[in-house]
């Protein structure tokens, strides 16, 4: 990765930092945020366009590719972005290194658990289990 004289501040920190990841975490939070603008507005609009919010209407909607796939992407992206954001909050307020790492670990496990449950539920709706 080029870090020449003309490098921007972001270019200079990429690959560096205490975690060795430098600006990648910062960038990933931005990438997921842009995706979430589209996916979350899709979710709100899609729910508003359904005739009702009954279980049968919603499971029918989520069993079609254009319902299930954006929903799966929304779940993955939202959990990733939420995890990134909460880790930054922890970094700002938890100063003791051991507690900071433990908090990151807990948040990561919770995000993986929540995303896995959501995706499994979505898959069982989509494949009619």
């Amino acid at each position, binding site marked *: 990765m080029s870090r020449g004289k003309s490098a921007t501040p972001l270019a200079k920190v990429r690959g560096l930092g*205490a975690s060795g990841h430098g600006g990648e975490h910062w960038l990933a939070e*931005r990438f997921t*945020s*842009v995706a979430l*603008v589209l996916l*979350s*507005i899709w979710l*709100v609009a899609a*729910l*508003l366009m*359904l005739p*009702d*919010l009954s*279980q049968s209407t*919603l*499971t029918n909607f*989520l069993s079609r590719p254009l319902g299930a796939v954006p929903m799966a992407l929304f*779940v993955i992206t*939202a*959990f990733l972005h*939420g*995890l990134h*954001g*909460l880790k930054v*909050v922890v*970094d700002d307020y938890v*100063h003791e*290194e051991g507690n*900071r790492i433990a908090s990151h670990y807990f948040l990561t496990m919770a995000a993986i658990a*929540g995303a896995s*449950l*959501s995706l*499994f*539920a*979505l898959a*069982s*709706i989509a494949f009619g*289990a």
Partner: protein
Amino acid sequence: MTSRPDRPLSPHLGIYTWGPHMLVSILHRITGAGLTLAGLAILTWWLMALSGDKEGYELFAFAAGHPVGLVILFGLVWAFWQHLFSGLRHLVLDIGAGYELKTNKFWAVMTIIAAAVMTLVTFFLFMGGVE
């Protein structure tokens, strides 16, 4: 991150005059934490209830339609729009634009107004659809 008390410290929050940019900054963090902790928990419950039996979904629907549930959902709808608009503002700030004092203040206020308007629009559209 070890604390190094000898290091020069930046001026603390207390010396600055409170302004809309500071409100939007802390609201972005509060709404983000709320959307993640409460919003994603409810999203998971909703999807699991949808995939399960009729009784499970009826319990979710009862909780969502209960006055307490409606207040929480209303709060989450507001948090969603506030975080979305202040997040868009942050993306502009990230590329180095919008730091002029008047511009910065104007768009900070606009995120609050836009979020309030969209919250009411969204909530009334959803309530209309339920009835």
